[in-house]
C-alpha cells in the first residue's frame, strides 16, 4: 500500500442526539475533525464514546443532528455505503476465512478483480507486518495478531475515515503498547482521518493528536494531550486525566489558598455557583516536592508508603491535617514508612472542584 498522505476526509458531528429507551446516550455532541487527524474519544463506561463512534459508522441510528463526512450528511446513508473502515474490540475476524481472505473481503464487496484483490490484500498484510501469516485462521492467531489483521482488513479498501472501537482493550499490556504505536505510525503514513475510542487515558494521551473527554453523553473538553493534562477545563477532566491529589483549599478572587500558599486557578471556576469559598485543589503528584522536615514554608507530613515505579518513585504521605497525598519524585530519594518529611507546592496553577466533587 503506497502511502498517500492526507487522503483522509473531514468529519463533523453536529449536535448529535441518541436516545435509548429511557436514557439519553448522546445529548447533542458536536465535534470537528480535520483530514488526517487522529482524535481519541476518552471517558468512563457509559459516557457515550462508543455510541458516538457507532453513530458515525452507521451501526447506530441517531435521533437528531447531522453527521458530515467531507461535507456530506450521511445520517441516512446505510453502513455499507459510508466508505469507512472499522476495527472492533474483539472477535471480528471471520472464523472460516484465512487472514488474507478476511483482508480481501472488503475488496470483494467492491467487486475488485481477483488479481488486484490479492495484491492489495497481501500489501495490507505486509503493512501490518503479518504477510507470513496470510494462510492462517483466526483461532490460530494471538489477540494482537488478530487485531492487526482486522486493521489491515479495514485499511485495504482505502476508506476515508478509520474508526477504532477500543481495539486494544482485550490485549495484554505489552502488546497494547506495541500495537498502539504501530497503529499511530500507519495512520500517520497514510494520513487517514481516525477516531479512536478508549477508556484508558494513558493510551489516549500517548497516541492522539487531540483527545475529547466525554462524560454522560457529551464532550467535556477537547484539546491536545498537553492541554488536557496541564489545563483541564473541569474537575472531571482534571480527575480523569492523570492523577490528582485533592487538597482542601479556599477559593477567592480567581486564586486558591492552601497550606499558606496562594496559587493561580485554571479556568474560571464557579464552585456550587459561587466564586469564593472552600474547595478542593487538584494538585498533580509531580507538582509536589519532598523536602527535609521543618523546612520553612513546607507542610508537615508523615510517610505512609513509597512505591518504586522503575523510572520514578511515588510516595504517599499523610499531611498534618490528615489529608493523604501522592508525591512523584526521583528514584534517588528513599522515603521510609513513618519518616517525617515536609511537602512543598511547586507553585503551578491548579484546578479546583467542590468539596464533594
Amino acid at each position: 500500500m503506497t502511502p498517500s498522505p492526507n487522503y483522509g476526509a473531514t468529519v463533523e458531528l453536529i449536535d448529535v442526539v441518541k436516545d435509548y429507551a429511557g436514557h439519553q446516550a448522546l445529548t447533542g455532541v458536536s465535534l470537528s475533525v480535520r483530514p488526517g487527524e487522529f482524535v481519541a474519544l476518552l471517558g468512563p463506561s457509559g459516557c457515550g464514546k462508543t455510541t458516538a463512534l457507532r453513530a458515525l459508522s452507521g451501526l447506530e441510528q441517531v435521533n437528531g443532528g447531522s453527521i458530515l463526512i467531507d461535507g456530506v450528511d450521511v445520517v441516512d446513508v446505510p453502513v455499507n455505503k459510508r466508505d469507512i473502515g472499522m476495527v472492533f474490540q474483539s472477535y471480528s475476524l471471520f472464523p472460516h476465512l484465512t487472514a488474507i481472505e478476511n483482508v480481501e473481503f472488503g475488496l470483494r464487496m467492491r467487486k475488485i478483480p481477483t488479481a488486484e484483490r490479492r495484491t492489495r490484500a497481501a500489501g495490507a498484510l505486509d503493512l501490518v507486518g503479518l504477510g507470513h501469516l496470510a494462510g492462517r485462521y483466526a483461532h490460530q492467531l494471538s489477540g494482537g495478531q488478530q487485531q492487526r489483521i482486522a486493521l489491515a482488513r479495514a485499511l485495504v479498501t482505502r476508506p476515508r475515515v478509520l474508526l477504532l472501537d477500543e481495539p486494544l482493550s482485550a490485549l495484554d499490556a505489552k502488546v497494547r503498547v506495541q500495537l498502539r504505536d504501530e497503529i499511530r505510525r500507519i495512520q500517520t503514513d497514510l494520513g487517514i482521518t481516525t477516531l479512536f475510542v478508549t477508556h484508558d487515558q494513558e493510551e489516549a494521551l500517548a497516541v492522539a493528536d487531540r483527545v475529547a473527554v466525554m462524560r454522560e453523553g457529551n464532550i467535556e473538553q477537547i484539546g491536545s494531550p498537553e492541554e488536557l493534562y496541564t489545563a483541564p477545563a473541569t474537575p472531571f477532566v482534571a480527575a480523569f486525566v492523570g492523577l490528582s491529589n485533592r487538597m482542601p483549599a479556599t477559593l477567592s478572587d480567581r486564586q486558591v489558598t492552601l497550606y499558606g500558599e496562594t496559587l493561580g486557578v485554571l479556568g474560571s471556576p464557579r464552585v456550587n455557583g459561587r466564586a469564593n469559598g472552600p474547595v478542593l485543589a487538584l494538585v498533580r503528584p509531580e507538582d509536589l516536592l519532598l523536602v527535609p522536615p521543618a523546612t520553612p514554608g513546607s507542610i508537615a507530613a508523615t510517610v505512609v508508603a513509597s512505591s518504586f515505579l522503575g523510572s520514578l518513585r511515588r510516595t504517599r504521605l499523610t499531611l498534618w491535617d490528615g489529608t493523604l497525598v501522592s508525591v512523584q519524585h526521583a528514584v534517588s530519594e528513599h522515603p521510609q514508612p513513618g519518616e517525617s518529611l515536609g511537602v512543598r507546592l511547586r507553585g503551578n496553577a491548579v484546578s479546583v472542584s467542590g468539596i464533594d466533587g
Partner: protein
Amino acid sequence: MTIETSRPRSARRLVSVPPAVLGLTPFALYVLLFLAIPTVLAVLSGLFDAQGRFTIANVAALFTPDILKTFASSFWVSAVTAIVGAVVGALVCYALLGLNPQGTLRSMVDSAASVLAQFGGVMLAFAFIATIGIQGFVTVFLKGLGINIFANGVWLYQVPGLLLPYIYFQVPLMIITFMPALEGLKPQWAEANATLGGTRLTYWARIAGPVLAPSFLGSLLLLFANAFSSYATAAALISQGAQIVPLRIRAALISETVLGRSNMAGALALGMIVIMVVLMWGYSALQSRTTRWQK
C-alpha cells in the same frame, strides 16, 4: 469419594493415589455391566448360531434383498424426517434470533422444544392417531372439506405413517441442537460485514452460511441417527411386521425363527451399530469444527 476419612497416618501416605482411582470403579463397573456387556453380547450373538457355533451366516443374511429393503426403508424415513426437521428447525431458530434469551417467548419455545423432543414414542403415536387416525381430528375436518386423506388406503399404520410423528420430535430436537450455533454467531461479524460494504445477503451467503454449515450438517446427522434408532413410535403404530430395522429386531426377538435364522437380532444390532457409529463420528467431527470457530 470416601478416600481418607479414618485411615492411620502411615497407611494414608502409602495409599494416597490409588484410592482416588478406586473412586472411579463403581461407574466403570456399572457401565461395563449394563452398557458394554449387553452391547457386546448383542453384537456377538449375531456371530453365533442357535447351537453356539461361530458363523457369519447371520451377518451375510443382512445383505439379502428382504433385509436390505428394511434398511432402505429405515434410511428413507430417517433421511426425509431429518431433512424436513433440520430445515424447519433451522427456520424456527432463525426466527428466535435476537429475542431476549430470558424473555417469555423464548423460554416457552425452549421448554416446549425440550418436552416435545422427549415426548415418549408411544404417546406420540397416540397423539397422531388422534390427529390423523381414521377418526382423527384432522381426518374428520378434511373429510368435511371433501378431502379424504386415506383414499388410497390407511397409510398411518405403515411406514409412511411414521413420517409425521417423527418430524414432530425431529423439529424440536433440531431447535435444541442448532440454537447454540446460531447464538454463537458474533454480532461483530454482521457489523464487520456491513462496514466492509456487504449486504444482508452477503452476510448470510458468505459468512453466516459457511460458519453455520458444519453445525447444520452435524445436527442433520444427529436427527438422522435419532430417527434411525427410534423404536417406540413405530412399535405402537405398526403392531406387527418388520418394515424398518428396529421393528425387524423386534420381530427377531419375539419369534425365534426369522428366515429360518436365529440370532438374527444380533446381526441386525451389529448392522445398526456400524451405521450409528459412522453417523455419530461424523457428528462429533463437525461439532469440533464448529466449536473451534466459535471460540
